[in-house]
C-alpha cells in the first residue's frame, strides 16, 4: 500500500467511526431525550421517567462513554496504519 492509499484508508476508517459514534450521540440526546421523550416517559428507571432520565442524566453518561470509545478506537487505528505518535 502506498502512503497515499494508506492515508486514504485511515481517513475512511476514521470517518466510519465518526458516523457510528455521532449517530449514537444524536439518537440518545435528540432522539431519546427530546423527540421520543414523551412516549419513553411511560417507562421508568427507578423513579425516573425514562425520557426525563435521558434528557437530564443518561445522555451525559453516554457522551462521556462516546469520547473514551473514540479515543480508544483511534489509538487502535493509529497503530494499525502506523501513524501513531512515539
Amino acid at each position, binding site marked *: *500500500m*502506498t*502512503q497515499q492509499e*494508506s*492515508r486514504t484508508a*485511515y*481517513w475512511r476508517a*476514521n470517518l466510519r467511526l*465518526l458516523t457510528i*459514534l*455521532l449517530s449514537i*450521540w444524536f439518537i440518545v*440526546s*435528540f432522539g431519546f*431525550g*427530546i*423527540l421520543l*421523550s*414523551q412516549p419513553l*416517559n411511560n417507562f421508568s*428507571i*427507578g*423513579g*425516573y*421517567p425514562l*425520557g*426525563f*432520565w435521558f*434528557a*437530564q*442524566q443518561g*445522555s*451525559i*453518561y453516554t*457522551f*462521556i462513554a*462516546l*469520547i*473514551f470509545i*473514540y*479515543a480508544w478506537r*483511534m*489509538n487502535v487505528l*493509529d497503530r494499525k*496504519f*502506523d*501513524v*501513531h*505518535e*512515539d
Partner: protein
Amino acid sequence: MDLKTLSLLVVGATFVLYIAIAIWAKASSTSEFYVAGKGIPPVLNGMATAADWMSAASFISMAGLIAFLGFTGGAYLMGWTGGYVLMALLLAPYLRKFGKFTVPEFIGDRFYSKTARIVAVVSLLVISITYVIGQMRGVGIAFSNILEVKLEVGLLTGMAVVFIYAVFGGMKGITYTQIAQYVIMIFAYTVPAVFIAIQLTGVTFPQIGLGSTLAGTDTYLLKALDQTLMDLGFAAYTSITGMTMMNMFLLTLALMIGTAGLPHVIIRFFTVPRVRDARKSAGWALVFIGLLYTTAPAVGAMAMYNLINTVQPGEIGSPQGNLVIDERPDWMLRWERTGLLQWEDKNNDGRLQYYNDKNAEFAERARTEFGWEGSEFTKIDRDIMVLANPQIAGLPNWVIALVAAGGIAAALSTAAGLLLAIASAISHDLLKGIFAPRISEKSELLAGRIAMGAAILLAGYLGLNPPGFAAQVVALAFGLAAASLFPALMMGIFMKTMNREGAIAGMLVGLGTTLLYIFLFKGWFFFPGTNVFPDNAEYWLFGINPTGFGVIGAILNFVAAYLVMKVTKAPPEHIQHLVEEVRVPRVGTNA
C-alpha cells in the same frame, strides 16, 4: 465565628492559594504563556478545561434554571455537555496536530488569508468579551450577596487576583490555578447536594436520589414533585413546559455547536503533549464537567421540592396550610435583604401562598374557594436556588462559606480562560501575525502581558458598568461561536477543497445573519427599545427563538461556503497537503 467572617476567611484562603500557584508557575516563553509549553498531562488538562468551561452560570444559575423549567431544562444539560463530543471527535485532535497557539491562527493558515484570520479574530473578540462581562459580574455578585461586601470591592479584589496569576503565569499559571479552582468548585457544589439528597431520600448520591423514593415513604420524589406542582396549577415537572419541543431541540443543538466553537475552550487542547492526549483529555474534561452536570438536576428538583414544602407545609386550600409569615425561616430573611426574594401578603391572611396565578382556571378556583388573591412571591431570583440551598437544608456555616468560594472560583477560572483567549488574539494574531511579523519573542511575551492587563481592565469596567444586556450576552456568544467559528474549523479539516473565498463568505454570512436575527428581536446592539419585532413566539421566524438561531446561522455558513467554493478557485497544492498532514497524528513511514 459568624458567617460573614468565616466566609471571608475561606475565600481569602483560596485567593492566597491562587497567588501561591501563580508565583510557582511563572511563564517565561511565549509557548508557556499561550499554551503552557504543551506539557499538561491529559487528566489535569481535563480538570482545568472543566473549570475553564464551568462558569458562574453553570455553578450558580443552572440548577435554578432547571428547577423552574423542569424537563426542558435538559436542553442546557445536554447542550453544554454534548458539545464536547463534537469538539473531541471533530476538532480537538486535528487542531492539536496543527500545533500552533490560537484559533484564528489555524483559520488564517488553513485558508491562506490574513482576511480570514482577521474575521476570526473579530468573532473571537465579540464572543469572548461578551462572555467575560458576565463572569466579572458573577464575581461581583458572589461577593456582594454572599460575603455582604460592596460589589465594587469584590470585583476589584477579584480583578487584582486574576491580574496576578494571568498576567505573570499566562496559560501555565491559569491552568494550575484552574485545577485548584475545579477542586474547590466541585466540592462546594456536591457537599450540599449530598446532604440534601440524604435528608430527602436517604440516598447518598444525588444522581440516584433524584430517582428514589422520599425517605420513609414509597412515593417517588419526582412523582411527588409532579403532583404538588399540578395541585398548585403548574405544569408537571417531568412534562414539556416552558418551551416547545422544536425550540428545545434547536436550543440544545445551538448550545452544543456553540460549545464546540468557543475559542477559550478549544485552546485548552493546544496545551497537551500529543494528539492522542487531546482525544483523551476531552473525555476527562467531560467526566469532571459531568460530575457537576449530573448533580445539577437533583439540586434543581430538590430545591424546588423544598421551596414548595416550606411555603405549603399543609393541605392546599386549608386556611392553616400555608407558611405563617412571622415564622418564616432565616434563609428567607437573609435573601430578602439582598432583594433577590420578595413577597407581598396580597390577601392579608398573614400567610404566604405560592401557586401559578397565570393559570386562569386554577387562579379562579384559588380565589373563590381558598381566598387567595394571587401568588405572593413577587420575586424569586432563580440564582438563590443554589446559593440558599445549604441554608435551606440547615447545613453548618462552613458549607455556606464554601459555596461562596466555589461560586467565585467558577467565575474567576472562566474569566481567566477568556482573558487569555482575548490577549493571545491581540498579541499573537493581530500584532505578531499581521502588524509586526518581525517582533521578537521577548517583545511578543511583553505584548501578551500588556494585552492581558488591558483586557482585565476592560472586563472589570464592563462588569461594573454592564451594558443593559448582561442576561442575553451568553446566548449571543454561543450563537456566534456556532455560526462563525465552528463551521470554518470543521470545513478546514473535513473538506480538503474548501478554499479562502468559501470560508470567508461562510463566516460573514453566519455571523451576519445570526447578529441580525438577534438584533431584530433584542434591539440593535442590545439598546433597549430599538428592537424591530417584539421578542415572542408570535413574531419569531417559523417560531425560532433567537437563542436557538445559531444553528440556522451555522447551516447558512455551511451553505454559503459551499456555494462560493464551487464558483472560485481550488486551494493551492500546499494547503491541501497541509490538511492531509493535520489528519494524521504522525506522518507514516511505509511510503
